[in-house]
């Protein structure tokens, strides 16, 4: 089963929830930190790192000897990443989306692909916890291909917990798509509520069951709860503001390591998610019954076929 921890608003406690949920499991569990712009989960898991992999995305390289300056490459490119100017072909690798269009369009087979560094993936473990995260190269704009690479490490046989980036645009979609359940971490403030509504909108577009976790639940107002009740969104857990929790977090200590009584609560959270994520619920988009297995299969086919 894949559980994606997302939020809309940043700083609501996604990483705190993802890491503590992972550390509360008795069986094998996998934690994928897909917030590749600002990955933080490792700061609380302290995994023994085992391997690093440099991740690249294909971008065009033009063989000037073969190129006839016909301009077809520039014609097909939607991203202004390649164009013919005068007697030369210019490529702008940082603008390239790696669609391969220029290479396919070139009648002279003058274009091949080289890699642009997106960042790295690091893997490690802590006891039965399998840890993977991506680190976007500073200066790189496109995080979704790196997020998809992190997700290609998903092991079908275990529980996979994904720490998603904030927001509701393409990086978040890349971190939620194909999940069996999305846990939305929010805070009971106007900013928290507004961004939660956006996040719920994104989850609905993807047709994934979701529930809420309200962090710092006693700081703010009741509007998040009212919204949850009006929209039949289950509130699966509430964590009140506690200076001890904030201080442990500030030092890179997992809540369940410092206050072990939380372990049981996180395990209960998992049990409730498991109940809700399992089949029978028809997808609002397709109308088809869907469950963990089916959705996961689609994801694996996608990653296997992916031509990165």
């Amino acid at each position, binding site marked *: 089963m894949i559980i994606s921890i997302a939020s809309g*608003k*940043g*700083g*609501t406690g996604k*990483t705190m929830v993802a890491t503590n949920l992972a550390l509360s499991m008795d069986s094998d569990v996998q934690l994928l930190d897909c*917030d590749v*712009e*600002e990955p*933080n989960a490792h*700061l*609380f898991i302290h995994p023994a790192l085992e391997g690093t992999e440099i991740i690249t995305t294909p971008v065009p390289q033009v063989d000037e000897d073969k190129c006839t300056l016909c301009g077809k490459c520039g014609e*097909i490119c*939607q*991203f202004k990443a390649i164009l013919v100017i005068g007697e030369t072909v210019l490529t702008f690798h940082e603008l390239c*989306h*790696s*669609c*391969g*269009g220029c290479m*396919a*369009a070139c009648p002279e087979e003058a274009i091949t692909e080289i890699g642009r560094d997106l960042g790295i993936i690091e893997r490690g473990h802590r006891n039965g916890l399998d840890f993977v995260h991506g680190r*976007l190269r*500073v*200066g*790189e*704009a496109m*995080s979704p291909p790196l997020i998809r690479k992190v997700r290609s490490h998903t092991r079908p046989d275990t529980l996979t917990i994904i720490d998603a*980036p*904030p*927001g*509701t*645009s*393409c*990086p978040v*979609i890349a971190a939620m*798509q194909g999940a069996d359940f999305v846990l939305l971490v929010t805070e009971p*403030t*106007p*900013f928290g509520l*507004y*961004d939660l509504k*956006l996040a719920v*909108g*994104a989850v609905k*577009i993807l047709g994934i069951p979701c529930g809420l976790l309200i962090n710092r639940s006693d*700081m*703010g*107002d009741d509007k998040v709860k009212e919204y949850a009740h009006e929209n039949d969104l289950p509130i699966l857990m509430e964590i009140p503001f506690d*200076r001890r929790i*904030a*201080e442990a*977090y*500030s*030092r*890179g200590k997992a809540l369940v390591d410092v206050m072990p009584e939380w372990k049981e609560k996180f395990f209960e959270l998992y049990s409730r998610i498991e109940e809700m994520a399992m089949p029978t619920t028809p997808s609002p988009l397709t109308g088809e019954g869907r469950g963990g297995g089916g959705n996961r299969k689609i994801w694996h086919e*996608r990653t296997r*076929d*992916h*031509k*990165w």
Partner: protein
Amino acid sequence: MGVGIERFGMKELVIISGKGGTGKTSILAAFAALAENKVLCDADVDAADLHLVMAPTVEEHHDFQSGHMAIIDQDKCTECDLCRNLCRWNAISEDYRVDPIQCEGCGVCVYFCPEEAIDFPLSTCGEWFISDTRFGPMVHARLGIAEENSGKLVTLVRQEAKKLAEKKAFDLILTDGPPGIGCPVIASIGGASAVLIVTEPTVSGKHDMVRVAQLAAHFKVPGMICVNKFDLNPEETQIIEDVARENDLVVLSRIPFDPIFTKAMVQGQTLFEYNTNSEAGNAVRKIWEELMVRMGS
């Protein structure tokens, strides 16, 4: 890239953080109450929150169109499968329908379809506004949920903010930036006069501050930092400020942890409107004075 602010003798301060939830928007709203003759700009188009405090009256509303989306005409399609073979996004289903979420808008299928069966309309993927607020004009936007092109929308709102400032002969733009270090952040800081990084004294705050500071250095934008909620961990605050100096950032005053941030937000008010003399508010006022000295205003 770059909005070319400096060429016009105008200053733009962009507030970013790396890590989300450190207080960017509340602090920017407080600055809005202190600054005169400025345009407010919300460049966090993906999860824009500044309007929740500013309560803007929308004066101009525009659609944001960017990028294209492939649509297969089922009547013309001969199911030759070429598009499915060429698509690197697996966006085309076995029954030749394009998944709008997967579609990258690269147009490769459109270009190669032998039947010219694929339409490629421009997508409307958001909207942007010019508004009036009790603190002056504001340019803001809303990216459609699950949409792409956030960087382009960020660039657009910054350009519009600059135009508006020129028209009104204002010399300052206050821009609320997004979290992270990716596409929308890069679009938010290129060509800015300076960035203020708001961080918090946690291991995550430190880690993320360093990455966003490196990003600012990469694009040659001068950076300053302030630590919010500093008293939650004074030792970590000291470490963060030392690391910031090593990364050539100017360290400004600290802000104490204060529930007034949340209370003011719940009331839709700035820190100063909620309480004219709070400890946190006074710290923010001091930071504003330091900023004005640093930015030469």
